[in-house]
């Protein structure tokens, strides 16, 4: 064991470094890491607590009578928040904060009802020119509403 002093010193430094690293690392591991698996356990609850914007469909009936008309028509499977906006825009904690946006543009109706080969054949769809005499781009706001009631659209 002669002529080896420098090896001992080097080994000591290396072990010191490792100890320092593992101590430092122990401080940095988050509290809940490893609780449920190899991830930070607290994150699951964080993800569960994110704010909800779209409410259940039935919520609109609490204040609006038109919901009853909507329920009885062909559009009953279309949620109110599709054509309007998510409830969170309109009502926050039971209080109304803003009016619901109302979009009267024919683009909204044609979004579902313009004729496309990729749509199922039995779905009601029209070619704007054949249905109204005007090309889609030339239709004015409220064009579809001249004949159709949006909440219960059959003529």
């Amino acid at each position: 064991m002669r002529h080896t002093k420098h090896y001992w010193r080097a080994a000591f430094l290396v072990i010191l470094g490792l100890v320092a690293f593992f101590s430092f690392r122990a401080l940095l591991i988050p509290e809940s890491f490893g609780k449920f698996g190899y991830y930070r356990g607290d994150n699951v609850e964080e993800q569960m607590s994110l704010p909800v914007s779209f409410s259940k469909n039935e919520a609109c009936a609490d204040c609006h009578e038109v919901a009853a008309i909507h329920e009885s028509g062909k559009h009953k499977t279309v949620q109110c928040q599709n054509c309007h906006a998510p409830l969170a825009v309109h009502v926050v904690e039971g209080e109304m904060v803003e009016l619901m946006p109302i979009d009267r543009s024919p683009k909204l109706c044609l979004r579902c009802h313009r004729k496309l080969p990729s749509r199922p054949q039995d779905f009601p769809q029209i070619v704007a020119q054949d249905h109204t005499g005007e090309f889609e781009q030339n239709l004015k706001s409220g064009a579809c509403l001249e004949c159709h009631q949006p909440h219960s659209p059959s003529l």
Partner: protein
Amino acid sequence: MFFEGINFLFPNDMHVHWSLMIVMYPYITGLVAGAFIVSSMYHVFGKEEFRPIGRYSLLTSLAFLLCATLPLLNHLGHPERALNIMVTPKFSSAMAGFGVLYSFYLLILLLEVWLVFRQDIVEYARTSTGFWRWFYKILALGVYDVSEKALENDHKVITVLAAIGIPGACMLHGYVGFLFGGIKANPWWSTALMPVIFLVSAVVSGIAALVVFYQIAMKMRGEKIDQPCISSMARLLWLFMILTVTLELLEIITLAYEKAEEWEVIHTLLTNQLSFSFFSLQMILGALIPFILLMTVVLMDRHLRDPLRNTLTFVASSLLLIQVFAMRWNVVIGGQLFSKSFRGFRDYHPHFLEKEGVLAAVMLAVLPCILLVVLNRILPAFTSKTSPQSE
């Protein structure tokens, strides 16, 4: 222009996420591994022809290793969280191996550099003054034993360290290859050959870089370039280069032969988007020409005059450095130029001044070279105060 007449990419597939920085990272770690293999030629396998660059190649490996994390840190979305990879590494991911492999190899390399240069460190501790005296005293760890027995012990330990260092260096670069090779979602990357291709091309880049640096360093010092050393490096370079190109071509030939689902998109990739960087750079300029040049140097070694040998190897090495870069580009960027839909392509053009752009890449290439010059000043590789020949 595009096959099937459509260019459809998945909506989230519009951007190339792994940029030029991720091309630089395997390039730099490749140079680390390659330079280390060259130094091991002397320190482990005892080949005397490699003695002149035995110490210099260790410094090269260290200089590039110290800069290896920079492209990654530049690329991460949250570099301040980079320590997460060391704090909670998930070892099912090849990328998590980085922390362990890098630290382990850094340790081995630092110890080996320390031991190889220890005799000089002690001498400098003895003869310098002021700041440098204390610097070298600390580096010597306060031990000044350079007796014959001590140096003999050192030599044994160096051999062991260098032997451990070879798999260490191979793993440090091989894991990058596995990082790509293990992604079944990307057919251009997914192959068992990927770690092997990365590793052998890393050795090519290391030897080529050392040829270039050695010749430049000797020219600047006004010293003679050792010819047996150059001949041996040329031979090793030639052999590894043949192996590398064979494997690279083999992968494509297999894909072309099997003509599976991915062949259509890869075929278009190679002939359109990568036509210049693959055929012109990686294969013709980067492989065929150096092959011929090195073949001349190796097979006609006896008949060559010194300046011609030096020039041929220098040119071949420079071209091979370009070849290895082109290969990294073609793998990393090429694999992202087509969408996972296998029906569409996107573009990638790094800008000069952007965060992960060309200027950043150039700086990252130049920084290790500057570091190498600095290291060579502190621990001169080519002169030794204690013995006429370098150790």
